[in-house]
């Protein structure tokens, strides 16, 4: 599975691979097999050139590390999940996706892939492995489900970067986090506006507090929140320390 999420310059190939796995998964789910027989059937369906398939329950222990490296790996982990999510969204568009929506979601996919590959390159040999996402709970055929998940990922990304800023020691990295978090916030606003157009929801009272502040959430809480979307067990007790 590693290679599925692995950062590559040839992102077209990567998207194709994710898509083929997704197609298998969607097929299995629609056949009503995924919950009871998923593990066995998926394993059987995998051919020899796919040695590390997305088998439920697989996943590695991933430790983000300490100090700024920990913060960068934390960001890299979140960007990996976002990039994988939007890659699947575009590979298997929900029914009724308009051209305008596809343009927006493709833009966001590209931004997240750029963020992901940027962090991977910046971290070099200190980068964590490519993570194995778990999007089993997301029905990619349904607009509501996809945009709802997108909203969750973007709001979470914003809160994560906002909470990580004060942990960053290097000025350059702090500015970089700032350059990225506002793009995540733009995504969040646009996704929210797609869900409920021209309402207050782009910066709704559900996410912005009475001081007009967005959320800022510590790494431990973010990691707990995204736990269900990744097969690997991520630990980050020393992020920023």
């Amino acid at each position, binding site marked *: 599975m590693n290679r599925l999420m692995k950062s590559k310059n040839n992102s*077209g190939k990567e998207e194709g691979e994710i898509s083929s796995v997704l197609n298998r998964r969607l097929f299995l789910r629609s056949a009503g097999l995924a919950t009871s027989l998923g593990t066995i059937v998926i394993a059987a369906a995998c051919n020899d050139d796919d040695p590390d398939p997305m088998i439920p329950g697989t996943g590695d222990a991933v430790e983000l590390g300490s100090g700024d490296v920990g913060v960068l790996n934390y960001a890299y982990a979140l960007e990996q999940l976002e990039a994988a999510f939007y890659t699947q969204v575009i590979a298997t568009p929900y029914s009724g996706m308009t051209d305008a929506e596809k343009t*927006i979601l493709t833009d966001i996919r590209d931004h997240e892939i750029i963020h992901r*590959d940027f962090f991977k390159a910046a971290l070099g040999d200190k980068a964590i492995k490519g993570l194995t996402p778990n999007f089993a709970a997301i029905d990619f055929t349904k607009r509501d489900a996809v945009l709802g998940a997108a909203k969750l990922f973007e709001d979470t990304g914003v809160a994560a970067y906002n909470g990580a800023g004060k942990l960053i020691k290097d000025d350059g990295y702090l500015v970089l986090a*700032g350059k990225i978090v506002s793009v995540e916030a733009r995504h969040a*606003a646009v996704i929210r506006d797609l869900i409920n157009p021209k309402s207050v929801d782009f*910066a709704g009272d559900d996410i912005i507090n009475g*001081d*007009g502040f*967005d*959320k800022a959430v510590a790494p431990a809480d973010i990691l707990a929140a995204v736990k269900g979307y990744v097969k690997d067990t991520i630990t980050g007790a020393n992020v920023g320390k």
Partner: protein
Amino acid sequence: MDIFKIIDDFQRIDGDAAGRLEFATRRHFMSKIGSKLATVAVPTVFASIVNKAFAQSAAAVDVLNYALTLEYLEDEFYKAGNAAANLIPASDKAIFTQIGKHETQHVAFLVKALGANAIKKPTFDFKYGGAFGDVFTNYKTFVTVSSALEDTGVRAYKGQATALKADPQILEYALQVHSVEARHAAVVRRLAATVTANPAMKGWITGKEGAVAAIYAGEDNMTQGGVNLKGLASKSDAAVTEAFDEPLTKAAVLAIAGPFIKA
């Protein structure tokens, strides 16, 4: 040395000093006392923390007053716009009411945080010396100026992040406001795209695409962390520039905002 007297003095200057000092004390003491420093060195260590707290306070006051100036500008702008008859179409009222609410909240927060150090509210000229003469009668102009203010706000807050590093809690507050400005910017840019019939204007900034050129100088930067990202992940230059928002220095922001400020 009377530590309590010093803390009292701080609080007379800055109500939040105790909290900041407590943070600094915890953080620096834990690391420094835990090291090989002998106990006799502790008073010196404490003195340096005290000095640092004073310095932090001055820097933070500067940044917060700068933020307050911009928030006052935005707040007054939306108050006038939201109050103007026949300006904002009913379909877009909710958006601008929500944005205006946040700017009012930001002003209130900053005024409270700064206490006696808060600057007075400036007087503004939203017509920008005549350049935006119909800003409160022509929706197109209003949306254009709004998008410019929001994108400038995003760049301005971003540009102050490193100046707040010594004040972790204030840095976090600034980041929490920064991302709200970015949410505003995205939704207003999309309105502007429609109202000005410019489909190249997206919620994110492609190259230097924006309503007022001067505000977007440098947004087309391709180099991040010292590396030119051209061709990264086989993505377009447009996507690379969209993926990163760029900061502005205080001087650059004040040059842009200056004509809005009469006194």
